[in-house]
């Protein structure tokens, strides 16, 4: 069985490293099709990353070591978080009791270094982006914790592996009231964390409305590539988390299950693409409403469970 475990880990690593940029390609293709355009090729982000990696960097004289360290540490933290989360019906490569706290705070660490690098440039504009990012994180982080709390309470386990496999083994997910709430809340958290449309527009360069883009304005070349890659990775990891709640299906055949997982992930990407085609970005002052809504949903899920 050691051999099987090894293959699982290898496939996990391969998907984690290679799949995320394709996800963004799917989102952009969906948006393009909805708008009647042909759109960029699916592999566009790979080309972009490849191009950026060959370029030089411009470093401002006011910046310190934090500036280049920010994106790199962010990428490392997000990658580590990706190793903690199980994909589909398979186990995560790293698992121990309480790893949900590490998972949540790896995202926190990534956020801290992204904002620190933004503040390091000394630009007022990047400072504004950083302030927005942490303000909204104040609401999305508790929502994530409530969601994990509901799963932990429901399965009686503090290991992500066991918690997230709960919907398959212990209870049918779509049929459980608290899980419906948590899944809705988690979807909003996913959109907020990955800066997708109702919260932030990834395409816009309109200065006053950006959140995430504002923080990466001064990064160029390989560092920008790292930032783009890390945010694609974040999207992939959070959709893997969400999929455990909304589509806990398994066929029983190993390779079929991997295929199913990949298809489901593309499903999430298409869903996001459709949502982005249908909705406009929210007014900045309304974003906290939406996030408070997500927090209330996850909190209500918890109340429903413990009442």
């Amino acid at each position, binding site marked *: 069985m050691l051999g099987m475990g090894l293959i699982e880990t290898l496939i996990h690593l391969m998907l984690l490293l290679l799949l995320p940029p394709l996800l963004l390609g799917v989102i952009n293709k969906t948006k393009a099709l909805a708008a009647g355009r042909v759109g960029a090729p699916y592999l566009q982000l790979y080309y972009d990353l490849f191009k950026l990696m060959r370029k030089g960097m411009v470093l401002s004289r006011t910046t310190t070591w934090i500036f280049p360290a920010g994106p790199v540490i962010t990428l490392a933290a997000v990658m580590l978080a990706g190793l903690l989360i199980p994909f589909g019906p398979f186990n995560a490569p790293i698992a121990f009791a309480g790893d949900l706290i590490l998972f949540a705070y790896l995202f926190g660490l990534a956020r801290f270094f992204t904002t620190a690098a933004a503040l390091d440039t000394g630009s007022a504009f990047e400072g504004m982006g950083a302030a927005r990012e942490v303000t909204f994180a104040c609401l999305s982080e508790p929502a994530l914790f409530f969601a994990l709390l509901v799963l932990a309470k429901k399965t009686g386990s503090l290991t992500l592996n066991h918690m997230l496999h709960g919907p398959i083994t212990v209870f*049918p997910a*779509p*049929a*459980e*009231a*608290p899980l*419906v*709430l948590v899944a*809705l809340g988690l979807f909003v958290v996913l959109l907020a964390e990955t800066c997708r449309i109702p919260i932030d527009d990834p395409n816009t360069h309109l200065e006053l409305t950006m959140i995430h883009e504002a923080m990466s304005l001064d990064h160029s070349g390989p560092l920008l590539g790292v930032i783009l890659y890390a945010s694609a990775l974040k999207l992939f990891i959070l959709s893997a988390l969400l999929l455990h709640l909304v589509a806990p299906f398994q066929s029983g055949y190993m390779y079929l299950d991997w295929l199913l997982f990949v298809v489901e992930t593309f499903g999430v990407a298409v869903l996001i693409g459709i949502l982005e085609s249908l909705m406009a970005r929210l007014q900045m002052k309304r974003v*906290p*409403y939406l996030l*408070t*809504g997500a927090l*209330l*949903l996850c*909190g*209500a899920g918890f*109340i*429903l469970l413990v*009442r």
Partner: protein
Amino acid sequence: MLEMLNALLVIVLVLNLFALGTSRILSVIHIVATQGALLGVIPLLLHGRLSLPVVLAATAAIILKGMAIPAIMIRSLRAAQIKREVEPMIGLLPSVLLGAFATGFVLLFSKQLPLAGQQIDTLIVPASISTILVGFILLTTRFKALSQVLGYLVLENGIFIFGMLLVQAIPFIVEMGMFLDLFVGIFVISIITNHINQAFSSMDTRWLVSLREE
């Protein structure tokens, strides 16, 4: 079945909060319509087997609450040419929070109620009470006549959920009578709304205070 029912009721509760947090009246109409259509499905889940009256009642509920009433309201909204609730008495976020607290409180408190055995596990009672409360919040904090009608509809949805407890006992004819009452009520209110709009060129019900006998 029971789990499916609870999942549906939870979505109804989420729609309540959305209705509280949306400023555009058209969106609120869509939300309330969705809620009504979802509620129409519940009797189908509660009855073990499908008989003709049950299916008829459910279809009537879905058509009436999901299509007919929203269509009337959208019509009078278009006639009145207003788009959004400009100034609710308390802001949108506070009213969402108020609704959420009411919902949470009811969820906790309904465990204390002495309910019959089979009702303990379903969310029917808490969902109905919190929907009624949310309808009440909508009704009392909005000033536009159409928003108040929407509050009334949400209130009625809450009562409809409560009626699900007696779904085995209510005769078909009574149910149809209730739908007819609701339909006529909304119809009349829409006409009154248009009249308010014509008289004051605004739908703000506070203007009604200025109607005095000289």
